[in-house]
């Protein structure tokens, strides 16, 4: 028995995205954001996308390129505070924004990636984030139904991979990447290094390759990956 090789080119991987798709994008700020896959998706041009991402990066970085290029109709997120472009687009009604509590966004994606319909949670009860959500009584207590989120495609950034798609992340670049890598029909990982099979010790794999469909090794790291000078 030998494990399949899932390496491919960035272009052929991103070609899986269709107009109208829901696309998850890993990252929290710069760390873990698949900057190169995002540029490939800009080049690919798919429109009317629903993006699911923790934040909207900063002007001129990450998913801001997709927002500015008019490819995004809907954004499911937790915080746009560092991207004035995104806030302007939201206020102008050009993108629809759904805000989630950060941990609940993670839980909803995890539910989607775990074959669970929803989780029952009391987070946000009594605040405006509870508006419109189904409420379930359980043992005399009220809970919000936080429904599962899945995507057609997930764009993931990892530090290392093997050809089967086992992934390892570094430091706080992990964030939403492992959970999004579980929750899409097509999971594309850009990685800084591809090691041979066996190069990632089996105990240190963060995302098992079973979840991953395509692995693309980055040729270079652009300036967008670097430390932000503020």
């Amino acid at each position: 028995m030998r494990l399949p090789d899932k390496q491919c080119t960035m272009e052929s991987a991103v070609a899986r995205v269709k107009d109208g798709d829901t696309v998850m994008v890993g990252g929290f700020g710069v760390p873990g954001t698949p900057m190169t896959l995002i540029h490939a998706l800009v080049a690919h041009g798919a429109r009317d996308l629903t993006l699911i991402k923790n934040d909207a990066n900063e002007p001129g970085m990450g998913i801001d390129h997709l927002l500015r290029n008019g490819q995004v109709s809907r954004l499911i997120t937790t915080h746009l505070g560092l991207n004035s472009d995104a806030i302007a687009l939201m206020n102008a009604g050009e993108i629809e924004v759904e805000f989630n509590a950060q941990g609940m966004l993670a839980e909803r994606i995890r539910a989607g990636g775990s074959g669970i319909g929803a989780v029952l949670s009391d987070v946000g009860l009594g605040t405006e984030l509870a508006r419109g959500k189904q409420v379930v009584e359980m043992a005399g207590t009220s809970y919000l139904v936080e429904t599962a989120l899945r995507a057609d495609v997930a764009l993931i950034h990892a530090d290392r991979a093997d050809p089967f798609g086992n992934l390892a992340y570094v430091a706080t670049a992990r964030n939403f990447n492992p959970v999004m890598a579980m929750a899409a029909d097509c999971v594309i990982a850009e990685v800084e290094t591809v090691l041979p099979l066996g190069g990632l010790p089996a105990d240190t794999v963060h995302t098992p390759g079973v979840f991953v469909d395509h692995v693309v090794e980055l040729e270079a790291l652009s300036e967008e990956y670097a430390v932000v000078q503020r």
Partner: protein
Amino acid sequence: MLARAAREIAPGMVVNLGIGLPTKVINHLSADFEVCLHTENGMSGIGPSLSPERADRNLIDAGGAYVSTVPGSAFFDSVTSFAMVRSGRLDLTMLGAFEVAANGDLANWKIPGKFSPGVGGGIELAQKARRVVVLTTHTDRAGNPKLKSECVLPLTARACVARIFTDMAVIDVGPNGFELVETAEGVTPTDVAAATDAPLVLPEMTPPTF
């Protein structure tokens, strides 16, 4: 039968082989065959089984057999393992059976009053793998058919079985119930029908043998 079932595995698949007969299918896969074997106690990329002398005390499959790794194996916890199962990342699972019904219902975990050790991971494998095939003797030890119009025993999952491999035949669960696909060498369609407690749709031509 095991060799025939092994041919059900297409290159590139992620496969979970259930406890018992299905686990033995592994011996019919060649060393360079492209497949990822999953075990629900937390591993992808199962390698060959090991004798106790060569075993790693911390490395077992869900049936308790000592197994090995292949290049690219990964370990994970029980939560992640079943997340894979339920979210549709298993292309195929092969399970044992006490009974299979003509609509694909499967009973393989409990015989009330006799055998009730708990369901383990069986429900989720049966209900959530993309394709579920059963490996079983065609009849039980007393000679009673295991393929029936309806299951009598408590169900594992409803309408989940796509194909059944027995010592007598390969049978699909189709829109009209059991459909004979192949017979074992020396077994006739009539033999199979006689050992099956439900209507059996026969192919127009004599079916191939395995």
